[in-house]
């Protein structure tokens, strides 16, 4: 059918924006034009769909941020209001600090990891040690309590940490909620050019053990880890620390899962992931490892020595960082938990003692997945 009117007049007609003459023209036309009538329906439908969208109230933090910035004519306060309502201003400082720590960890560390491209690398590296497991159910409650408390205590640290761009993060572990200890360890140990030894934090009930799996592809790594966990009989795998993933650093590459494992299971998992020596090539401290990046190697300094997979009784582990291009030792693959020289790091952390074949209670383990930054050689 040949339409004699401009189609856009249908929109004007729908919105009541036509003058009387145009309105009459359109009405007369659509009475006999099914195409235009159909198009008018399409317009109405699209308009109605948008009108049905929610009108949100402005998050309180936005208003406060604006008013605060207006009142203090310095750099505007960049604030992202928390989606979780229970986090108030007092916790935002700690949360922002955590965000910064993670960003520093994932950007600086990622950038510094100038590992050559290659096959997927996966190494399970522990972040914490000797953590006591609470019940899963108590986690959320404790998280709330520790976060509030930590935020108050951390607020005074916030500026200094930011100022130094987190390189000299002197975080007291007592002031950190247990759920945010993962990046803290990494941050304090890898401050560039400085062998900062972070103050020790006694393991508190509820603190999980943090491990990181390094790989070229997080999705594959995660799939692999979950597969290995299932082969160990672990079926309950939680998407761990949701608040980290989302509110802390939504753009971060890593994801994390949370499981409950015994010490032996952790060692087995390490062994299985690190079975392929090639996968461990780029993690320092592991016998046979070859460093491509000094920054990553510094992770092995100080109290972090031997944490990344080396066994205490392995011949090369006690020196911490080893620039070694030794031939791969296939025999190490067949060793039991803790005996894998390539990184079956026993769960005792530190120098990585030989795993003791003893029953141990299950503890909470948060496994983070970190992706190497791919760089062209």
């Amino acid at each position, binding site marked *: 059918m040949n339409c004699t009117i401009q189609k856009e*007049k249908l*929109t*004007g007609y729908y919105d009541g924006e036509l003058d009387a003459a145009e309105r009459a023209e359109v009405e007369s036309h659509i009475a006999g034009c099914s195409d235009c009538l159909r198009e008018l329906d399409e317009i109405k439908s699209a308009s109605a769909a948008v009108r049905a969208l*929610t009108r949100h109230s*402005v998050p309180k933090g*936005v208003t406060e941020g604006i008013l605060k910035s207006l009142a203090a004519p310095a750099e505007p306060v960049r604030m*992202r209001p928390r989606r979780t309502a229970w986090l108030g201003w007092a916790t935002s400082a700690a949360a922002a600090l955590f965000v910064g720590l993670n960003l520093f960890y994932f950007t600086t560390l990622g950038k510094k990891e100038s590992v050559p491209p290659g096959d997927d690398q996966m190494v399970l590296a522990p972040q914490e040690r000797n953590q006591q497991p609470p019940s899963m159910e108590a986690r959320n409650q404790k998280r709330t309590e520790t976060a509030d408390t930590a935020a108050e205590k951390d607020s005074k640290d916030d500026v200094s940490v930011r100022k130094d761009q987190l390189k000299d993060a002197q975080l007291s572990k007592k002031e950190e909620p247990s759920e945010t200890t993962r990046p803290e360890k990494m941050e304090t140990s890898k401050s560039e050019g400085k062998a900062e030894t972070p103050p020790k934090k006694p393991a508190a009930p509820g603190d999980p053990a943090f491990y990181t799996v390094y790989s070229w592809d997080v999705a594959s790594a995660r799939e692999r880890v979950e597969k290995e966990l299932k082969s160990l009989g672990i079926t309950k795998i939680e998407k761990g620390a949701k608040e980290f993933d*989302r509110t802390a650093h939504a753009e971060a590459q890593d994801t994390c899962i949370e499981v409950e494992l015994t010490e032996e299971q952790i060692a087995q998992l390490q062994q299985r992931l690190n079975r392929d020596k090639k996968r461990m090539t780029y993690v320092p401290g592991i016998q046979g490892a070859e460093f491509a990046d000094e920054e990553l190697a510094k992770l092995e300094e100080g109290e972090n020595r031997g944490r990344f997979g080396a066994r205490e009784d392995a011949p090369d582990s006690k020196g911490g960082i080893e620039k070694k291009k030794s031939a791969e030792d296939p025999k190490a693959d067949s060793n039991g938990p803790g005996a894998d020289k390539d990184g079956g790091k026993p769960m005792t952390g530190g120098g990585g003692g030989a795993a003791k074949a003893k029953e141990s209670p299950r503890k909470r383990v948060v496994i983070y997945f970190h992706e190497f930054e791919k760089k062209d050689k």
Partner: protein
Amino acid sequence: MKDLPDRELVQRAKQGSLEAFNELVVRHQEKIFNAVYRFCSHWDDACDITQRAFINAFRKISEFKGDSAFTTWMYRIAFNQSVSFRRESGRQKAVSLYTKDDEMVREPAYEENPGERMENDDSRRKVQQALGLLEEEDRQIIILKDLQNHSYDEIAAVLDIPKGTVRSRLHRARLELRAKLKSFIGTHR
């Protein structure tokens, strides 16, 4: 302050009255925030952009001539800020709310006309998704008309385009939106 019209508040803000500008913020922030949020499809970005827009507006209040409404000016600032922000952050034009952030996509409870309640949350999300796939100009115009219910004249002032262009662009944008919705959810009534 609450009884003063926008024009008066702007004048006082130009003279340095923080209280006057604060009242403007309180009065118009919801409108601006929702426009920005629907434009950039990202909650946290919308929060940041809204803050920046108002802060920038305050800093440049002396440049506001008052020829147009304060909201017209704020929309312009907010949309420009949105475009700049998104480009700086390298976000894609179409950002689905439904990638991995479950909480972000949850539509909070709100009061709506029961008679209009024909879509569920999932449908609204798809609408937002389709909106995010439109060209920026088309998205702006649909937001200003269908979300904020401004007249063609007001929209023309915000976007600095002729009124005729508002109509033609709106027509095209709605049909485009409808086509995208159809591809998501089939026939959308």
